[in-house]
């Protein structure tokens, strides 16, 4: 692919129009709001705004949609940190450390870390996408059902890291997640299973109601059990103006730089996960988080460490650029949002195809420039929102908790306007309450819930493709064999990590 200078100059003039930049800023601002609202996802925001782009110039349309996408991915972390309510499933990995920091009065630091690590990883993954899209796409194609199964098994071996010292409880959490993940219908034969004869459970349990229930509603239930919250306390809602004027300490440069390793892990893991179809930002976030925890056992990740926020947020944002790789290289969208962006291109008369670089180079370059400029805009707009949201931690909990409950119910319903999802979310809230009371980690449940059905689907596809021969299913290529070896290594490291942490703790385990 050689650089087409004329097309690049044309693309620059298309993007740096006041109209395009304003719509991009509007997209980011709306996206941050949408992302912060539990249940509303980036794909929903893009879908709802798509008709607006019908009569826009192509660069303006892309500016609005990419702005929405980037803003909403960052917005998810705002409510994860401020309310322990992930705005989107991909922010769930941020809750543990982000909200713990918020409760310690370091909300602004956490929000800034989320923003800077998001933007850094997003920017670098975009550069990676721009420089290597065709090569990356070819690498992604090597990963068929068998290879993807091993990647997912590799993720499962990291569940031990997500459990910390609570290995037995972590395994219980993972098994429950696995069971919930099998509810609905089997992915190949469509046979109903584990759905208690409830027809509306045919499609299984979607991720947003589960995440909102386990992380947010469980907290509401727990707070309701506390008399000081239920009772008519005397505290008053602070004057909003005073709240907004109050100052809390922002992130220092050395604190950001201290997390370079975790941001690097997020960038690497997130970019890789983003390339593979069907995995997505949530897997990217949890995997980065687990790898960072494994790699830095002494940094207190999971107990309110900036490093935990950095790893999770870098991991989910690093998937943004690479999910567009299949669209750019082959005209095939790699995610729901990429499909909608592809749809917008079709409506602009630029149908995504492998010939896009030849037929519409100025549009491809515009897309690349918008991806990069969008990060800079996201940084400024995100900082503004971070400043406001950081103060929400100071709102008295007797006001905050009902607000979180309301957001959880409304957000779950808004996800697909399906009232059954609210029931699922409340049940998951009760399960989450049990987890809180017995100090069982939630992350293994979420990661097992997401990964187990994907692993099953890929493994069974590989089995069908191989003519139902298990050896060929599992080891059909050098890549599969290499990944199997990586799984064995990861399991070994995980066991060593567990033993070492028990020894450090004087043999005490939970």
């Amino acid at each position, binding site marked *: 692919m050689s650089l087409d200078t004329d097309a690049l100059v044309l693309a620059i003039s298309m993007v740096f129009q006041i109209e395009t930049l304003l719509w991009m800023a509007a997209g980011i601002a709306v996206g941050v709001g949408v992302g912060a609202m539990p249940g509303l996802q980036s794909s929903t925001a893009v879908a709802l705004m798509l008709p607006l782009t*019908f009569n826009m110039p192509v660069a303006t349309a892309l500016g609005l949609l990419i702005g929405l996408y980037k803003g909403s991915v960052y917005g998810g972390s705002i409510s994860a940190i401020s309310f322990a309510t992930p705005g989107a499933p991909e922010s769930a990995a941020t809750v543990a450390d982000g909200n713990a920091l918020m409760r310690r009065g370091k909300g602004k630091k956490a929000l800034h870390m989320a923003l800077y690590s998001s933007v850094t990883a997003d920017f670098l993954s975009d550069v990676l996408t721009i420089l290597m899209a065709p090569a990356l796409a070819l690498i992604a194609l090597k990963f068929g059902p068998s290879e993807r199964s091993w990647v997912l098994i590799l993720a499962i071996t990291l569940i031990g890291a997500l459990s910390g010292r609570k290995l037995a409880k972590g395994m219980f959490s993972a098994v429950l997640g696995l069971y919930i993940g099998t509810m609905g219908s089997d992915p190949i*034969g469509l046979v*109903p299973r584990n759905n208690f004869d409830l027809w509306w459970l*045919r*499609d299984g349990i979607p991720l947003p109601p589960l995440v909102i229930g386990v992380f947010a509603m469980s907290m509401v239930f727990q707070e309701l059990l506390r008399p000081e919250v239920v009772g008519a306390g005397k505290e008053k809602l602070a004057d909003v103006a005073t709240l907004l004027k109050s100052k809390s300490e922002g992130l220092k440069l050395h604190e950001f730089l201290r997390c370079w390793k975790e941001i690097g892990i997020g960038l690497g893991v997130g970019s890789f996960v983003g390339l593979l179809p069907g995995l997505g930002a949530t897997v990217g976030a949890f995997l980065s988080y687990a790898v960072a925890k494994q790699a830095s056992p002494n940094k207190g990740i999971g107990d309110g460490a900036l490093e935990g926020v950095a790893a999770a947020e870098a991991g989910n944002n690093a998937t943004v650029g690479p999910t567009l790789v299949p669209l750019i290289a*082959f005209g*095939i969208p790699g995610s729901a949002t990429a499909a909608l962006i592809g749809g917008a291109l079709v409506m602009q008369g630029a149908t995504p195809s*492998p010939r896009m670089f030849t037929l519409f180079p100025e549009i491809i370059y515009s897309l690349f420039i918008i991806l990069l400029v969008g990060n800079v805009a996201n940084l400024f707009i995100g900082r503004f929102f971070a400043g406001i949201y950081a103060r929400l931690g100071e709102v008295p909990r007797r006001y905050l908790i009902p607000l979180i409950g309301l957001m959880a119910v409304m957000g779950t319903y808004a996800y697909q*306007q*399906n009232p059954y999802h609210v029931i699922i979310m409340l049940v998951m809230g009760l399960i989450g309450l049990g987890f809180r009371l017995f100090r069982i980690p939630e992350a293994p449940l979420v990661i097992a819930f997401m990964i187990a059905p994907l692993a099953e689907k890929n493994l069974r596809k590989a089995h069908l493709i191989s003519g139902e021969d298990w050896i060929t299913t599992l080891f059909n290529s050098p890549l599969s064999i290499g990944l199997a070896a990586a799984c064995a290594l990861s399991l070994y490291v995980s066991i060593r990590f567990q033993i070492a942490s028990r020894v450090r703790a004087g043999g005490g385990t939970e």
Partner: protein
Amino acid sequence: MKSILKWAAAAALSLGLLSTSAIAEDYPSKTITWIAPFSAGGGADRWSRTLSSVAFDVMDQAVRVRNIPGASATVGWGEMLKQPADGHTVMLSSPTPIIALVTEPNAPFEPDEAKIVAFISAFRGIILVKPDTEWSDWDSFVSYAKANPGKITLGSTFSEMVGAQLAFESEGIDVKLIPYDSTSDSVTDFLGGHVDAIGVTESTALNMVPEEAVALINVTTLPLSDEVSEKLGNPPHAAALSYETINFPRWVGVHPDTPDEIVEKLSDHVQAMLEQKSVQRITGKMGEEIIFVPWQDAQPQYKALVEGIRKAAPAITGK
């Protein structure tokens, strides 16, 4: 006594007919609830909102779109069945819920529990293979599959797999079917060489032929337009080869007990909505094609679709 009863029966029938006619004449007498049984932003939702934008101009009554997704679009369908059979609750759907109802042994209702008002669009199913295979035309594909049963793998979503399986059954060949959740996933595995063939819609085929793929056959009843057929290398048409074929329509339906007079009137209204310039402009921008089939023709085609899905389902689901 018998004659009195006959007269009474005749009078009751006339009254019934009269009342149905009278209802049909006034129809629609209030706002129509239009169920899109999928989430906001999807194809059914966009079609519903596009049609609702011109509904008042066409029939002097507004249309209120309600997204009722869930359980492969059958939750929305179930909601329609709970409403009176007066044509004021309408659903716009695709073959997705039919596949769910056919493959589920304890389905809450049958796929014939809807009266079809019209088909408004349809997509065609094309089988693609790699250009460098030794069976890059339909005849050699069939020969190879006959000589090597179960050796060739085809990946696609369930909807597109139905058409492909009917073509395979018509030729008596055994192709291993690999179900995918989305076309993008199956296309990625096809490009990576993990599956030998894929079933895709016409628009996806146009993106991939000729660089990445060769079009083997159009497995749907609808023929390709001359222009598209030429771009795809003039693949054979399954219907022209006398294979069993079906269409994959976007269909509009109402409660199965709705009187025919109301269905006919609604079918005319839907046609009038599709003829509005703004609808044609928006659907064109959506990359969708308006293919209107009125209720009398759509109902037998719908029955054929259900039968086709029933026939292909065991091979697809392995049951």
